[in-house]
């Protein structure tokens, strides 16, 4: 047999030119068409599923070679190819249009890809996205959905708290198994961070909403405006449902405990992004929610949230600087998004820790005072270099500041329900993701603290399996 010919370089995906995209919130990356997707899929060397490192790298274990093979097998019938590929993906992940866009593939499925050792890894994320987008545009997903609708008679009822990635995945997996699922969501729209946190230019809300329509088609009920812990308690849910899944995330912003934190125009990234994404404040006054962004914005932090906030502020017409207390190589944001931010003109300042916000006579912020930091050789628990202050200070002018230094779990639920929790507010769970309250499971940022969309989805999926076992056992012993 002839040795397979390796194509080392990935097929690129087109992007909107910088000068055009910084003026609006439209999506930056335009994705593959069928011909280019096929070309990229053909680079995959088709490792056997039981070995394929890409599958192991994916937190929900999508059969990646399987869906790429499905594309290749029907090269002359795109609709059929996509339908077969989507079926393979949906077996493990019901939100591929989302994950194909927002996963840090470079750390997950694409990191161990064998092709990455000789050239570029397969562009798995963009291929997953292509399958989902093409299927949606041609209505193929609606046809396929019928195959996944399960009989719900008598299997059981499950309440899911929080309609973010963890809760959505748990609900969809349980619905596919035949459970009757109700999601309780505090905000007026489902989606969690996908709706209020991640901007349109990375994840268009129309696409998200179409993905969320699957919930209804699979028989999942969504109750918005329900704040579990206030509107209804976990105890009450347990009386009505066979099990409960908590996917309430980590939505409380950490703020800096330094002078001036209450000055005008200092936002938490969560407030800033919620106004922009959920409330569409960038369309004010067509939309009623206002947002006040000046000419010079400083974003503090260097995770994905910081990139999203910086690029959003840029699109509102500001000059934006990201200030980070560590160095370039310590940034936690996705490589692709750091690249986008740089292309779009976001400036970066490293080794600066804010020590004071300085205000003008009207109580508006006018500058941020930073201490210059210096890295040490020693590393912390997460493998990042430790830093120390140098005693030198620098003051940078700014008329708006956005704080993106991290999030922690919301305390409403824990306080109201008496869960065993860690000091940082994350819920304590066992190996089956069950909390200290029997029948109540939890996953995502609610147990991990701030992590990623796909890890939350992995937890949602794992919890769905555990809930299925739990309910089966309960019914067998009843």
């Amino acid at each position, binding site marked *: 047999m002839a040795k397979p010919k390796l194509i080392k370089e990935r097929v690129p995906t087109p992007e909107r030119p910088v000068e055009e995209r910084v003026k609006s919130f439209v999506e930056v990356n335009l994705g593959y068409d069928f011909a280019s997707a096929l070309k990229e899929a053909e680079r995959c060397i088709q490792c056997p599923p039981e070995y394929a490192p890409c599958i192991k790298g994916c937190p929900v274990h999508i059969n990646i070679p399987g869906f790429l093979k499905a594309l290749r097998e029907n090269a002359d019938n795109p609709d059929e190819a996509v339908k077969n590929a989507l079926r393979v993906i949906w077996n493990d992940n019901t939100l591929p249009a989302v994950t194909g866009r927002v996963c840090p593939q470079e750390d997950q499925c694409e990191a161990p890809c064998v092709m990455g050792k000789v050239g570029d890894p397969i562009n798995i994320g963009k291929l997953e996205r292509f399958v989902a987008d093409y299927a949606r545009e041609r209505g193929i997903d609606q046809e396929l959905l019928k195959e996944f609708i399960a009989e719900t008679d008598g299997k059981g009822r499950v309440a899911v708290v929080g309609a973010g990635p963890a809760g959505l995945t748990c609900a969809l997996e349980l619905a596919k198994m035949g459970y009757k699922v109700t999601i309780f969501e505090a905000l007026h729209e489902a989606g969690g961070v996908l709706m209020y946190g991640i901007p349109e230019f990375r994840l268009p809300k129309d696409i998200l909403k179409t993905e969320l329509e699957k919930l209804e088609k699979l028989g999942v009920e969504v109750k918005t405006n329900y704040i579990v812990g*206030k*509107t209804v308690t976990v105890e009450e849910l347990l009386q009505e449902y066979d099990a409960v899944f908590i996917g309430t995330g980590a939505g409380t912003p950490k703020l800096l405990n330094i002078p001036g934190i209450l000055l005008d125009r200092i936002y938490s990234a969560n407030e800033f992004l919620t106004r922009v994404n959920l409330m569409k404040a960038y*369309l004010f*006054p067509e*939309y009623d*929610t*206002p947002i006040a962004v000046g000419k010079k914005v400083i974003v503090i932090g260097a995770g994905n949230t910081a990139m999203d906030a910086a690029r959003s502020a840029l699109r509102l017409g500001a000059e934006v600087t990201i200030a980070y207390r560590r160095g370039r190589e310590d940034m936690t944001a996705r490589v692709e998004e750091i690249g986008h931010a740089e292309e779009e003109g976001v400036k970066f300042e490293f080794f600066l820790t804010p020590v004071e916000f300085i205000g003008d006579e*009207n109580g508006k912020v006018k500058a941020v005072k930073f201490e210059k930091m210096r890295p040490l050789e020693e590393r912390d628990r997460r493998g990042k270099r430790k830093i120390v202050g140098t005693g030198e200070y620098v003051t940078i002018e700014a008329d708006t500041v956005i704080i993106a230094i991290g999030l922690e779990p919301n305390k409403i639920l824990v306080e109201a329900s008496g869960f065993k929790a860690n000091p940082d507010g994350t819920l304590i769970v066992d190996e089956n993701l069950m909390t200290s309250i029997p029948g109540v499971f939890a996953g995502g940022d609610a147990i991990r603290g701030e992590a990623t969309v796909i890890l939350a989805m992995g937890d949602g999926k794992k919890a769905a399996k555990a809930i299925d076992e739990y309910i089966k056992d309960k019914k067998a012993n009843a």
Partner: protein
Amino acid sequence: MYKILEKKEIAMRNTWYKVHAPHVAKKVKPGQFVIVRAFKNGERIPLTPVMWDRDEGWIVLIVFTRGKTTARMANELKPGDEILNIAGPLGNPAEMEKFGKILAIGAYTGIVEVYPIAKAWQELGNDVTTLHVTFEPMVVLKDELERAVGRHVVETVPIDPNLDFPTNMKNVTKRLVEKVREMLEKESYDLVFMVGPTGDQKAVFEVVKEFGVPMKADLHPIMVDGTGMCGACRVTVGGEVKFACIDGPEFDAYEIHWDELIARSGYYTDMEQRAMQEYMKLIEQALQGGEQ
């Protein structure tokens, strides 16, 4: 979607909405609030259930027409229409204890938030006096409060048509401060509670402080989600940053950093005015269109 069962103008710029919202009606306690989003492209605003019926599943909201969203609600919503979103109940309930003799003050439409708390305090065995200070045509809930508490005092200030609204409001502040001083001089109270504009809360607090009476205030910072996920409503209380939506809205008036709070409430004044002006333009256009 939450159906409007009743809607009526009960005083100048004060609209009464009785809304079907069983999830809130079932759980709400005095001192808690809801977040309402009335329109598709609308904003989220905090409002307070004034009355409720747990069995029938309704709540009453009384809304002061203050800017675009409240004006749109007053103009565009009809009985039978639906409010898109009502999330709640939110915030902590008011402390329900036997404090003794209480003076509960409501400035303007703030009295509607005082109502459920004062009523519950009275029912618990407290001796509650309520004080409502507002413009003459804006008196609301007079009969209801007279029935609910030991004594209800209404102090009104006429609207001087030659003066602009902010100047007129200064007269309310003046009367408020005078009346509170007069009442504290005449009788001793165990607790003062107040709902109203932050500037007025501070002015009253300055008087109460002189008498050394404990005071609580329901704060009204800007809110977005109302569930503790953004910190828009942050306030400094006792030197610590608190989120009014989850740690409040009621705080010890002696611990609140009043000046900071007053500054924060004016953050969006320009944009609020712009939103209102654009809305007025739309109404004018619609009126002109109707005449043709």
